[in-house]
């Protein structure tokens, strides 16, 4: 039984996932050190996470891992959405980057005992003869069709090899369904943000989403719990695309032709609507994941797919009103260092009342019991 994670490396700190995971881990008093690495500075305010700006070269990362005697690596750096960067950069990051991170964690004198790898449901692709619910041990029925899918399959292959060579290290791979939420920008949130949502004529694919809170929650859960293996992370419930668009209160426009869809997409792009390649099959065949393995580890998903879409609708309504109220966070090393280390800075948690850990736990237990009651009431 490996000891609990205390000294943690978070890769991809500037991505949404990395930032959120670091924030959640900061709240945990048992975690001694959180080191975040990335090429770019973080986009969220962090209290005690130390940021090291570094390209993913394995010797550099190895020095950080060994220097800080890190026991856990949370790899959130994978690019799973081709709208965020160019295919070449994505490939570099996904395949070469993963190789480097894993290389930095291996070796005879390594201190790393746990690796949590963020992957994506794009691993499964989306095809005509897919099962309605993918389980983790299912292989893709067809070879990957798009660059991103190829990258993800290759990166997961590297992680699998790493797990085979390091039986003492707990390796957890989390395959996330398409994420939605107010702070996360993905191909799907852009698509569902359109005033009129274009669909393929004659198709109503099944879609499943995961709320951004559950993305962070599942990653942190994997850090705190010992759960070797691959897990699908997706909200309960699979919706039809028409249902999703209905929940968002938008008109659905089945304007894409069922045959020759690829030819119509450049036209759509001229109108300012980009549908990335890995999403094209999803709009035709859709995808559903089986999330029971994750639930069996004790993680309780906070939002179902339907609730996730409803939250998105709330956000879409409020966004135009709130847009300019809060300025975006900017990372400045000098300011961060001053605020963290200068003795002149007054720290908020000195003095004043804070609930103890036991009190928080008790409150959570009470809330859980309430919620369970609610749920059993609803089922009846």
């Amino acid at each position, binding site marked *: 039984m490996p000891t609990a994670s205390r000294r943690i490396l978070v890769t991809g700190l500037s991505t949404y996932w990395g930032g959120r995971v670091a924030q959640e881990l900061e709240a945990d008093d048992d975690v001694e050190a959180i080191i975040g690495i990335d090429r770019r500075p973080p986009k969220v305010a962090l209290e005690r996470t130390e940021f090291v700006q570094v390209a993913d070269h394995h010797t550099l990362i190895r020095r950080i891992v060994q220097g800080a005697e890190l026991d856990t690596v949370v790899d959130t750096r994978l690019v799973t959405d081709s709208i965020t960067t160019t295919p070449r950069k994505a490939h570099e990051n996904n395949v070469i980057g993963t190789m480097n991170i894993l290389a930095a964690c291996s070796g005879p004198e390594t201190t790393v005992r746990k690796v949590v790898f963020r992957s994506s449901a794009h691993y499964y692709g989306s095809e005509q003869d897919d099962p309605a619910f993918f389980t983790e041990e299912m292989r893709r029925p067809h070879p990957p069709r798009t660059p991103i899918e190829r990258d993800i399959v290759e990166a997961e292959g590297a992680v699998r090899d790493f797990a085979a060579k390091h039986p003492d290290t707990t390796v957890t791979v989390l395959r996330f369904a398409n994420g939605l939420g107010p702070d996360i920008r993905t191909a799907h949130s852009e698509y569902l943000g359109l005033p009129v949502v274009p669909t393929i004529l004659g198709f109503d694919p099944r879609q499943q989403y995961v709320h951004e809170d559950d993305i962070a929650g599942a990653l942190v859960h994997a850090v705190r719990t010992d759960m070797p293996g691959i*897990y699908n992370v997706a909200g309960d419930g699979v919706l039809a695309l028409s249902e999703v668009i209905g929940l968002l209160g938008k008109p659905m426009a089945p304007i894409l032709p069922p045959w020759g869809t690829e030819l119509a997409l450049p036209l759509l792009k001229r109108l300012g609507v980009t549908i990335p390649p890995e999403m094209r099959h999803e709009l035709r065949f859709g995808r559903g994941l089986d999330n*029971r393995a994750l639930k069996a580890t004790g993680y309780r998903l906070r939002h179902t797919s339907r609730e996730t879409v409803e939250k998105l609708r709330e956000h879409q309504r409020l966004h135009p009103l709130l847009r300019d109220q809060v300025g975006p966070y900017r990372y400045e090393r000098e300011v961060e260092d001053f605020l963290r280390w200068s003795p002149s800075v007054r720290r908020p948690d000195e003095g004043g009342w804070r609930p103890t850990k036991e009190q928080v736990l008790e409150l959570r237990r009470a809330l859980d019991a309430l919620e369970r009651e609610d749920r059993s009431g609803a089922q009846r």
Partner: protein
Amino acid sequence: MSLPETTTALAPTERRDLLPGIEPERTLDDWGRSERVEGFFDQTVYEFYYRIWFRCEVEGIENVPGQGGALLVSNHAGALPPDAMMIAKAIREEHPRPRVVRPLVEHFFKGYPGFSMLLPKLGCVPAHPANVQRLLHDEQQLALVFPEGRKGSEKLFKDRYRLRRFGRGGFVESAMRARVPIVPIALVGAEEAQPIFAHVSALQKLTRLIYFPITPTFPWLGPLAMAAYLPAKFKIRFLEPVPTDEMGERPWEDQSLVQEVAQEIRARIQEELLDMLGQRRSVWFG
């Protein structure tokens, strides 16, 4: 295996308990079935065909279990077979505890515009072994399968009521894995409702349909022909269930046993069909 298998390692009770809860606000279930759309079809199209057009007669409805999963296995016929909807309607109408039946359909339909939208709404599920396992074992539902598949629906009128090969016995394997009984069904009438006289392979390639048949109404009436059946008299006979849970620890691994059971079920349906045809005096009046 370096990374442990996570879902397959779950205990049977866990697999059931961890299924997503039902959200009453939703109009569709996770498979895409819409109570509203299915209800509409049930009240209009199915009702018309069941009562007036095909005048269905049902025997042995007590052989369909009132609870728990079961795999219904039937013979198959007609260019666009009407048998699935009639069996589903029969269970809804005649069974003391009416249940939803999930017909298993070919993956082909998922790629075909229109069908891809409509069939899941009507409760159809693509016939993937994982889907069948989830339906039968985890969700304890009724699934309906036509092991002849398209070989049954594309056969010509001159071959009517001669059962094709029952696939590779995959349906028996699925039922064994899910530990649910198999209920064989013999159905008379569908062969005459939409007989196929010939196939045109050149047009099949052009339209990318699974086949391009010549029937009394197709292609003359175009897409309308899909619902244009001749008014044959339908008789549906549910046969005694074949239990699969007393065949040993892992019976699905024994290929000879699987084939044997598949053969036996096929022979029983064939025998029953011949019996029903022998008693039949008229195609149209029964």
